Structure formats: structure tokens, C-alpha cells
């Protein structure tokens, strides 16, 4: 049994699985149920000035019959009175002293507002704070959430104000609705953030109803953009985590968020530099019990890898993430088809023929349909192995290069040195 405890910038929790600030952490009842189910921490649904919510809030995207491939919401921060939330945080922390409770906060970008709310939530015993600079809908129209999270100066300044008052670690939650997330991550670091978390949701419109022509969801015939999350956003989030992890100016721990649905997703985020992860959509889709396999699967994985602690996994793939200009231009892989495993759906052939490099030939041998890769034309794009429905039918295999490795950057350097 590996040790799953994490310590994220001083916030300790029994495992790396936290519930993200969202509908699942709306109340003490829910957070206590989550802790009983095994979640290591919870970021409470964002606290702030009183707001009102609309009815009809969520929508999801199905893909080929698979429900909740992506998820969209237009719900705002908590609509419950601050006093009620604080009371429930206090009670929950008392019942679960070893679990992490982080208060998510969102107020107007004013120093006194931040000072006031930080004091009130720290008084009830939270383990840390998460500044919501990410929600893209509703609150952003009032200058909060992603509206302030998109301006590096505002991120830095507000983080600084919070740090003036805070006694617990401060996590800054970043919005992905920005060209380069490392810019705001650096700003948060400059402001004194103890950690950053990412990603918040991505601006989205889930769909249009083809019968009524209403947006999905709609509120009395009108829609507004929401925030997108769920499995579909995982690659976007993973890249943002990795970019921050390999940026020396973002020298704080990262809490990874975005489409994490199981222990494998979590392990990928941890390998790419996240110290822990936050989950929402998967819990909303299946309930709190999914954490059982997350814990169990991660444990077994760490045992298989011979790691004593999940903290030993953090960031292990970061150094493998690089710039395109540092990739070896002379590395060569090609597709290899195993006709004994192949079921002859010919998807690789048509994918290559229509949309890639026309190097998979169909032929028959003793009346049996066969497929073969013309290696000299194969660029190693992987498309055939991606569309192949059968494991082991197509392998991408390395072909030894006859010339030494050379990256684009090395090549350019060499060319410029020759032309001098």
C-alpha cells in the first residue's frame, strides 16, 4: 500500500482526490457525504456576495451515445447565505479534522472586500483558500471571476491583498479563457500565491435545439454562454498544467483540474506536475462513490511502479514536455499491421488513403483480405493506429535512424553558424 497523503503548499489531505468548487460542494451535507465516501478534500462552492441563480443551469454533450462527454453550466457561485456556509464549514471540519476543506472565494477586486472575507472564512477553520479568478459566466459580467482572472495585473494585485490577510495557504484558480495561462500563473506567483489550480471552465455553448432553435440550456427562450468541463476538456487542462509545471517562474505547487474521471486521468495530471487533483463532472455523473476506484486504482498503480508515496509521482513527466523545436527530426516510427489480429474493417486504409499519406495497401493473399503499410511512404502519423478498433492490430514501431538526432533548433543553429 503506497502512501496517498499529499501536502499541497502546506494543505494536507489523506489522498490527492479533492472535490472541486462546484455543485457537489454546495453544502455541509454533501461535503460530509463525500468525505465519508473517501474524498480527501473539498473546495467549498465559491463564497461571495449574495447572488441569484436561474433555473435550467446544466447541459451536457453526448458523443456517439456516450453521455456527458462534455458538461456545461451557467450556475453562479453559492446562492446560500454566507453565515450558513460558514456554520456548515465549521461543523464539517470538526467532524473531519484530517480532511482538507478549502474555501473558494470570489469578491469584487477591492482590497477591503478580500480582507473581510478571508478573515471570516479563516475564523471557521478552513485549511486553505482558493481564489476563484476563473468562472467565465455571469460573475465575469460584473468584473469578477474570469474577468479579473484574464488580467495579469488584477490577478497579482488581488492575490497580494489576500496574502496580506491570509494565515492559511492561498491557491489561485486560473481561467483557461486566455491565450497563455502561464502569464496569469506567473502573475499569481508574483502576488505571493502558495499554489495555483487549473483549469476553471471554458466558455461554451452546449448546443442548439434543432426543433425549437433554442440554445441548450435556455432560460425562458434565452441562453448565455456557460463554462465547459468534463472528459472533453482533459487534454486542454493537461497541457495548461504541464506548461505551468515546466515554467520556472511558476515555482509553486499545482492543483490539477479538468475532466479527471478516474485514477488514470489523475495519475497523468500528477505526472505532469499536479500535486493533487480536483474532480467535479465525474462525481456529478456517477456520484461520490467513484472515488473508491480512484484511490484503489492509484494505490495499485503506485505499487506496480514501486513508488512508496504518491508524492514520488509528482512531476515525473514534466521534463519530457518540451518545445516543438527541441524534438528530434530524425526519429522515425512506422505503422506495422498484424494481419493475424486484424479484423479487416479497413478503417486504417481509408483513413490513410483519404486523409493522410496513402501508404496502406489492400490486397488479397490466398483469397484472404490483407493490409500492408508501404513503409517508405509512412510518416509515422499514428492515424491508422488511432482509428484501429482492435488492440494489437497496428503497432507504431521505431525504425533506427541512419543519421544522428537533430532538432529544428539545432539545425537552425548549425545553418546560421555555417553561413557566418
Amino acid at each position, binding site marked *: 500500500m503506497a502512501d496517498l497523503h499529499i501536502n499541497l503548499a502546506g494543505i494536507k489531505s489523506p489522498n490527492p482526490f479533492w472535490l472541486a468548487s462546484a455543485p457537489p460542494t454546495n453544502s455541509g451535507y454533501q461535503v460530509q457525504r463525500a468525505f465519508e465516501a473517501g474524498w480527501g478534500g473539498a473546495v467549498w462552492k465559491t463564497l461571495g456576495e449574495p447572488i441569484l441563480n436561474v433555473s435550467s443551469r446544466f447541459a451536457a454533450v453526448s458523443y456517439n*451515445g456516450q453521455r456527458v462527454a462534455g458538461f456545461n453550466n451557467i450556475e453562479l457561485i453559492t446562492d446560500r447565505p454566507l453565515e450558513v456556509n460558514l456554520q456548515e464549514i465549521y461543523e464539517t471540519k470538526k467532524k473531519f479534522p484530517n480532511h482538507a476543506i478549502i474555501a473558494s472565494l470570489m469578491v469584487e477586486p477591492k482590497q477591503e472586500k478580500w480582507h473581510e472575507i478571508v478573515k471570516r472564512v479563516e475564523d471557521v477553520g478552513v485549511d486553505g483558500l482558493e481564489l476563484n479568478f476563473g468562472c467565465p459566466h455571469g460573475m465575469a459580467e460584473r468584473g469578477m471571476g474570469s474577468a479579473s482572472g484574464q488580467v495579469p495585473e488584477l490577478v497579482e494585485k488581488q492575490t497580494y491583498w489576500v496574502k496580506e490577510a491570509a494565515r492559511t495557504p492561498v491557491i489561485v484558480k486560473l481561467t483557461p479563457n486566455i491565450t497563455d495561462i502561464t502569464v496569469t500563473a506567473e502573475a499569481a506567483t508574483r502576488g505571493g500565491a502558495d499554489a495555483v489550480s487549473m483549469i476553471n471552465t471554458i466558455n461554451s455553448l452546449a448546443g442548439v435545439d434543432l426543433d425549437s432553435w433554442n440554445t441548450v440550456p435556455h432560460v425562458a427562450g434565452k441562453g448565455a454562454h456557460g463554462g465547459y468541463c468534463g472528459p472533453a476538456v482533459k487534454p486542454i487542462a493537461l497541457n495548461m498544467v504541464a506548461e505551468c509545471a515546466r515554467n520556472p517562474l511558476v515555482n509553486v505547487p499545482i492543483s490539477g483540474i479538468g475532466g479527471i474521471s478516474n485514477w488514470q486521468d489523475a495519475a497523468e495530471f500528477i505526472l505532469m506536475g499536479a500535486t493533487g487533483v480536483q474532480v467535479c463532472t465525474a462525481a456529478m455523473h456517477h456520484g461520490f462513490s467513484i472515488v473508491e476506484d480512484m484511490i484503489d486504482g492509484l494505490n495499485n498503480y503506485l505499487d506496480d511502479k514501486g513508488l512508496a508515496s504518491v508524492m514520488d509521482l509528482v512531476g515525473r513527466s514534466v521534463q519530457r514536455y518540451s518545445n516543438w523545436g527541441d524534438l528530434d527530426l530524425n526519429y522515425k516510427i512506422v505503422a506495422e499491421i498484424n494481419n493475424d489480429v486484424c479484423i479487416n*474493417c*479497413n478503417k486504417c486504409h481509408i483513413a490513410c488513403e483519404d486523409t493522410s499519406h496513402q501508404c496502406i495497401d489492400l490486397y488479397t493473399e490466398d483469397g484472404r483480405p490483407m493490409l500492408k503499410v508501404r513503409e517508405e511512404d509512412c510518416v509515422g502519423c499514428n492515424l491508422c493506429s488511432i482509428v484501429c478498433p*482492435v488492440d494489437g492490430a497496428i503497432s507504431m514501431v521505431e525504425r533506427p535512424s541512419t543519421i544522428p538526432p537533430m532538432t529544428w533548433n539545432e539545425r537552425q543553429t548549425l545553418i546560421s553558424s555555417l553561413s557566418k
Partner: protein
Amino acid sequence: MVPIQENAMTIQLRHNFMELKAKMTKNEAIEEANRCLYCYDAPCIKACPTSIQIPNFIKKIASGNMKGSATTILEANPIGASCARVCPTEELCEGACVLNSSTKPIKIGELQRYATDWAMETNAQLFKPSPHNGQKVAIIGAGPAGLSAARELSRLGYQVTIYEAETKAGGLGSYGIVAFRLPNDVVDWEVGQIKQLGVNIQTNTTVGVDISAAEILAQYDSVILAVGMGAVPNLGIDGEDLEGVHDAIEFIRKTKMGPLTNDIVGKRIAVIGAGNTAIDGATSAVRLGADNVQILYRRTQKEMTAYKFEYEFAKQDGVEFKWLTAPKKIIGNKAGKMTGIECVKMQLGEAGPDGRQRPEEVKGSNFIIEVDAVIKAIGQTRFVSLIEAFGLAHTNGVVDIDETTMQTSNDKVFACGDVVFGNGQGEAMVVTAVQQGKDAAYKIHECLRKPSEIA
């Protein structure tokens, strides 16, 4: 037979003949449709005698384009709703599905039914006739081959008249396939679709009785002979005229024409033969309330022509199989009712010209099976006199055709379906008859098309 009063038994009997397989739910259909790999150059298409673009119609179910899905199916197969129910899919499309090698094949038949059921329920008109080109074609027989030819010819602009001896069009679908596999309303809808295209179907019209072959030849530019096959031949043994001796085709036909009767309830039945019609006869007898149903076959399970799924189905229905058993004589009482069959045990000898081992009697092994009724299902007779009335060359009742042109010995007469199928090749499939009907229509069009259209 006396129709019985509406009571518990009638209700039970009617229930017994309702379509066995439930239709897929929308969720099931979409889930299954999404499992289709959408193969390139898909083997299922090649395995379908009518070449339905199967991955396309399945994709359209997944995308919610039900009209497109039904059109894709019915474009290639005018009686695609029937075929969805009666095709031996595991020997055709589903047998060719590449997923047989990895998981399990797509339920193509059930998806095809799901899509064509949509067309039936919405009664969408999916096809239109072309303006008349001034040419007339007569089709003899409104079965799968004839209906298929008629649909295609009317779409090509021909004025089509079908002559059908029965009171209803549909052929095998209306009279020969048990209702719990193929309900009447499916066939009726398909016939209706073809009538909507302006095809004139003259039912209750027997060629040779109500209109002569010569008149038809004189009145039409082309003729398609698609008469299928006739009654079950005699066994050639004593006692065939006793009460209780049934022809399987006639037996099934009565269950399709309704109302169902109770004269089989509690009876012991023997079925002679082991083809698909024998299975239909046997399972119909079970559903009519027979106490015991046994199939007698002079060869073994290995040689029987019934599809494997039909055999499994009959066994599940409790039908017993007596292999290597041949009837010698039907025994009756003084009142002229049969009481049993004298049988003889057989053994397999040398292989015959068809490759199958020939059954031979085991001397002195005669025995008697006590049964109340026997259903003969040893094949079907040919409409030889009708074929000869048209003056067509034939081999044992199978019309000789040029396989590339579908033409008979009379250039003006084309033939398709069961009437050209046979001589030891087992039973023709409905779906093959449909394709032959299409082919005959296209061949006629090639012959009759005006030179200006070709240029």
C-alpha cells in the same frame, strides 16, 4: 375447421402467433448503431444479396436521420422490412461483420427492422414513380421477386401490372412465412408502398384460367415470370388421402389467413422433412396447441437444410427430431382418419450426385408412430403447366434463363425468384429473390430503353 369463440384459448392462440422478437428500443438501437465500426468496403454489404449500404443506414440511425436510414435500406431492397425479419442474417450480413473476430457482430437485422418500422409507423412515402414511358410490363406473381421488379420498373417509368392468383399480394411473405416471424401488416405495408407507385396488382387472377398466357404476351412489351413454387408434392406412400394429412404450405397459410382454429390443440403431430418449411410447420403446430410435435427426417442433422437458428428455435419450442426415419405408410381407421405412421429406420450409404450420403432403408426396422396428424414438408412442386403455357424451356420445372440477361427461351419473357432457382441447391432466400426481381427490371430496361436514351 371450425373457428372457435373468443375465449381464453383463442386469446392464447393469437398471442402464440404474435411477432416473437420485440422491436429494439430507441436506446438499444442507438447504442447498437454506435457500435458499428463503419468499415470501409464493408463485408456486410458484400454479404447482402441486395447490397444494402449497411454501414450507411446504421450511421443514419445513430445520427437520428431515420428517413434517410429507411430510404437507404428500401432503395436497395423494396421489401427490406420483411427481410429484416426473415433473412438468415448470421449467414449473410451479420456473419460477415468484422466484429465476429473481436467482440460480437452488430445486430444488423434488428437495426434494419428498427429503421423500416419507423417508415411503417410514419407511413412516409420514400419513392416516386417516373413519368410513364409508354411501355407496359406484366409480372406473374406478387411475391418478393415480382414486387421487387414492379417497384423498380415503376420507378423507371413503366406501367406495371402484376397478376396474382391469391387474394392478397405478398407471396411467401403473405402465405408462407409464419406470422410470429413475419406479421401480415409488414407485408401489407410493403405491398401498399409498391401500389402507391401506381403498380396495378390484379389479385384473384390465375394466369391460364382468368387470363391466358397468350393474351399477356400480346398485351405487354415485356413479361416477368415470378410465380415461385406450388404445393408440397405427394410422399408417394399409402394413406396420403386420409383425414389429418396436411401440406405444410397449406397448413402455414391457414395460420396466416386466420382466424386460428383449435383443431390441433392436444394433438400429436409428425412433420416429414427438415427444411425451413418443416420447422415452420412444426413450430406452428406447437403454437396451435399440439401436445407433441416430432420432425421425421430420413437423413441426419448434418444433412438437413433448415438454418441453424431455425433448428435451435424448434428445439426451444419443444419439437422433437427423429433422424434417419422415413415414412412408409400412413395408417388410418375406418372413419378415414389417420392414426399413425409406419416408419422405417434409415442409414447413410454412398454419396449421391449432390455430395450428400444417400439414405438407405434398414431392412426389418419398420415401426409405427402413433400420431393424430402429419404435416408434409418435403419441398414444393413447380408450376410446370404455367411455364409451358408461356412456351418456356425448363429443366424439371425450373425455368431456363440466360443468367446475364435474365431472359427465358422467349426474349420477351424474363424470369426471377424461385421459378428459376433449384435443382438440388436447397431453398432460395427471400432476399435473393428480391435481388433477382431488381435485376430482371434493370435488364428489361436495358432492352426496352429507347436508343436515344442510351446515347
